[in-house]
Structures are given as structure tokens and as C-alpha cells.
């Protein structure tokens, strides 16, 4: 009677398995470290045909310096002692080129516990390593770019603001209303440019920098943004003890941007009235909703407002840089959450962000 399980457990089939593996080098070493078998993965990764390598010591795969330090021999000693050795490092192909290898060496023993050799499995991780190196480099580039932006773009702004102030002091007083207005316009433009630089830096930081998510007490974060509003303008309803997985400073920024907007876009003639509601959202998300009774947003604009530099109002009506909501969206996405809005023109808005619960 055919027994498919047993049929697939023969030595022949196991050898066929090893011989069909293309992605990993899988081969045996003698107890002294000479290559005893060779599979297609080994040939592909290291470049040797079986007849070129079988019988040679595996130190030949190592860079010269590591050969001199007797690193390959040391690895066998460790594998024999503890059963297993794992390492990542540069290895050398037949043509002399380097590849970044993940190497596992296991001691193979017979039924009596006698060491009969070592099994060696090698993966070529060069492209992954290169991608990581590129990513690290681009983060470094971004950091130095951000630093230059904040340093070099602000210097002329300080000069413009400073010399405008100097002009106001040095001109014969009293200043004419026109001069006063001109100076005020310069100052307003400087303030706007400073805000733009701040917000752009924030945006690029949350877009690219590493973020370490920790367990954050949400009530704490919301308490931290409350001083934004005048007394009594903000009410809160936060589920007691609710905690989220987030980066604290970015979460604070996201919530404070939403509260900022809710306070800003109130109806002319009416003061702001804002409510922050936070609770577990059924599954494993926490929803933080910021409700206002302000001017509201027509549904056709709901998507656009989360894009960077998109604004619905003139700067004169409602000042802003057009980055705030884009930043909130980016932060929520970095947390593995989402943002959204429910609103109609003239009927207030509710902006929410979902953040993973801790």
C-alpha cells in the first residue's frame, strides 16, 4: 500500500529536496571544515561548481583578514560546543566579489553523539543590506537637509525682522501710518515664513524619521493640549484609563493641530466651542474625535483638506500654512491608524484620528 508520508521521508527524497533549493546554500562540512556536499543554491550564491569546491576547506569563503584571525575554525569550535553558530558578515564568491551572508552552522552527530560533520546554510542578504544602507543614508541626508533648512532659511528671516525693527526705531518718530502698516506687513510675512519652516520640518520629520511607539496614556496627552484654548472653550470626554501605542510627541502634535483648527474655524461672532471625545473604537483602535460648532466643510472638500498646501480660505480670513491636517494624516498613518472628517458647511466639523490601542 502506498504511504505518501513514508515515501517522502527517504534519504533520497531529502537529498532531492536539498538539491532543488536555489535560494539557500545548503551543504555539509567534514569535522575539520572541508566541503563535503554542494547544492544548486551554494553554486548560485558562491559561484563554485561542485567539482571545484568539494574537498576544499570552507575558509576560502571568508575575507582574508578573517582567515588570518582563524574565524572559520573558531565558528566550528563554537558549533561543536553549543550545537549551533549563527553569524552575518561579508563572504567572498569564486570571482572575488563580496556578498553579505547570513550563515548558520549546525553540528551533526550520529546516534552515539559522535561529531560526523557540520551542516551549513548560507543566505545571500546583499540586496537587503544595501537597501538598509540606502535607507539609513537617506535618513541621514534628510536630517542634514532639515538642519540646513532650519539654519540657513531662518538666518535671512532674522535679518529681515531685525532690520525692519531697526528701521522702525531709526526713522524719525512718530512713524506715518503708511510706514507703520508697511512694517507690520513685513513682520506678518516673516511670522508666516517662520511658521512655514516649522511646519515643513515637522512634516518631513514625521514622514521619514524613525518612530519608536510606546504605551501612552491618552488623557495625559489631551491634558497637555488643553491650554491651547480660552477657559471653558474645550470640553473633554475621555474613556478612563484608555492607552494607545504611539510616539508621544507626534501624537501630541496631531491632537493639538486638530484642536487648533477647531478653535480657529469658529463662526464669525461666536466664540469657539470644542469637544474632545476619546474612546475605544470597537476593535483594537482608539478614536480621538475633535468636534467643533464652527463653519464646517462642504463634503466635496473633505478629501482635499488632508493634502499638503491645500487651503479653503484666504489667509486674511483664517491664517495657516496648509500643512496642519496633512501632518495629522501622516502621523496617524505612521502609527498604523487613520484620519477622517464628518462635516457639512455651516454645521460644525468632527475630525477624528484612530490610533492603535496599547
Amino acid at each position, binding site marked *: 500500500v502506498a504511504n505518501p508520508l513514508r515515501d517522502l521521508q527517504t534519504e533520497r527524497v531529502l537529498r532531492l529536496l536539498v538539491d532543488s533549493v536555489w535560494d539557500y546554500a545548503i551543504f555539509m562540512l567534514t569535522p575539520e571544515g572541508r566541503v563535503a556536499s554542494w547544492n544548486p543554491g551554494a553554486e548560485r550564491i558562491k559561484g563554485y561548481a561542485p567539482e571545484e569546491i568539494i574537498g576544499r576547506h570552507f575558509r576560502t569563503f571568508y575575507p582574508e583578514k578573517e582567515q588570518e584571525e582563524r574565524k572559520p575554525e573558531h565558528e566550528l569550535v563554537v558549533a561543536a560546543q553549543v550545537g549551533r553558530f549563527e553569524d552575518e558578515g561579508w563572504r567572498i564568491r569564486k570571482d572575488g566579489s563580496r556578498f553579505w551572508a547570513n550563515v548558520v552552522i549546525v553540528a551533526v552527530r550520529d546516534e552515539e553523539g559522535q561529531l560526523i560533520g557540520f551542516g551549513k546554510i548560507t543566505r545571500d542578504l546583499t540586496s537587503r543590506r544595501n537597501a538598509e544602507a540606502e535607507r539609513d543614508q537617506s535618513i541621514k541626508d534628510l536630517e542634514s537637509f532639515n538642519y540646513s533648512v532650519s539654519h540657513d532659511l*531662518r538666518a535671512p528671516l532674522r*535679518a529681515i525682522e*531685525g532690520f525692519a525693527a531697526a528701521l522702525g526705531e531709526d526713522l524719525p518718530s512718530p512713524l506715518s501710518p503708511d510706514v507703520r502698516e508697511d512694517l507690520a506687513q513685513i513682520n506678518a510675512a516673516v511670522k508666516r515664513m517662520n511658521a512655514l519652516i516649522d511646519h515643513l520640518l515637522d512634516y518631513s520629520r514625521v514622514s521619514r524619521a524613525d518612530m519608536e511607539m510606546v504605551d501612552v496614556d491618552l488623557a495625559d496627552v489631551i491634558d497637555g493640549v488643553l491650554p491651547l484654548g480660552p477657559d471653558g472653550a474645550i470640553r473633554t470626554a475621555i474613556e478612563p484609563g484608555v492607552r494607545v501605542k504611539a510616539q508621544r510627541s507626534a501624537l501630541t502634535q496631531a491632537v493639538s493641530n486638530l484642536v487648533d483648527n477647531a478653535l480657529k474655524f469658529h463662526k464669525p461672532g461666536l466664540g469657539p466651542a470644542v469637544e474632545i471625545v476619546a474612546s475605544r473604537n470597537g476593535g483594537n483602535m482608539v478614536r480621538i474625535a475633535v468636534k467643533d460648532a464652527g463653519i464646517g466643510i462642504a463634503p466635496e472638500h473633505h478629501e482635499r483638506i488632508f493634502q499638503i498646501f491645500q487651503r479653503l480660505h484666504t489667509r486674511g480670513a483664517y491664517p495657516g500654512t496648509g500643512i496642519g491636517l496633512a501632518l495629522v494624516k501622516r502621523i496617524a498613518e505612521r502609527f498604523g491608524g487613520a484620519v477622517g472628517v464628518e462635516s457639512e458647511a455651516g454645521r460644525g466639523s468632527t475630525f477624528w484620528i484612530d490610533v492603535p490601542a496599547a
Partner: protein
Amino acid sequence: MPPLLLLVEDDDADAMLAARAIRKASLSARLHRVKDGDEAIAYLQGRDPYRDRAIHPDPAVVLLDIKLPRRDGFEIIRWMREQPAPLSRTAIVMLTSSGRSADISRAYDLGANAYLCKPTQHRELVALMTALGDFWLERCALPAAGACPAEADA
């Protein structure tokens, strides 16, 4: 002779505005500005054209930017702290636009005595210079004086 503030600042506009702020804050100090790290070290060593210590005395406080041509602010702190007295202990106050925590830590680690961020508004710069004069020039016992400043009569 009033104490000397040595301002190490490469940006002409920032230097002019700092001078203006110091004037407006009515500090009882003279200001000398150098443009880069090499000039700062030439001044501090009393090399030409700064040989005459009657005109170019040892500074009471060095106001130091970080990003400078030739030698940056960190190199200057390190160099000063390797020199014999008085430079080894001359007060170094960073005045820079970098608010990076790595820069702040590094400046203190190397031996800076204070770290000030350049304000974006001139009004704030005047306030900062007023505070700086009050603390470092009026109330602080600087190493060169070797004594506590006399208390103002109540």
C-alpha cells in the same frame, strides 16, 4: 575698562543685530566681533592683529555660534578648554540657531557654560542680551575677577 564680549559670528546681519541688541540692552561691556573660527583663535591667542592686550583684552565672555567657516564652534570650545588659564575657564555662551538636542548636549559636554538659541524676533534678542548682561556681567563671579561682584545698595 569695561569687560569685553567676543562675538564669534559669521553672518554679518546677525552680527549687526547682535551689536544693536547689546547697545539697546545698555550692557556695560565692549563688543568685538570675529567672523570665523580661525579669527576667534587668533584673537584668543593674542596673535596679530590682536597682539595689543590693552586694545584687545582677554574676553570676559565668548559668544559663540556653532556653524562657522573654517573651524566650527565645537572645535573652538574644545581648543579653549585645552589651553592654560584664562582660556581654559573663560565663560563660553553659545548663541546659535540650532536647537538640536545633540548640539546642546555636545556643547555642554565639551565645556560650554550656557547655550542660548537665537530668537527669531529682534525684541527677544534685546531681552536675551539684557538677561545675559545682568547674569554674566553684573551678577556672576567670573574667573578673571576672582571675587563676587559687589552688591548694589538697597
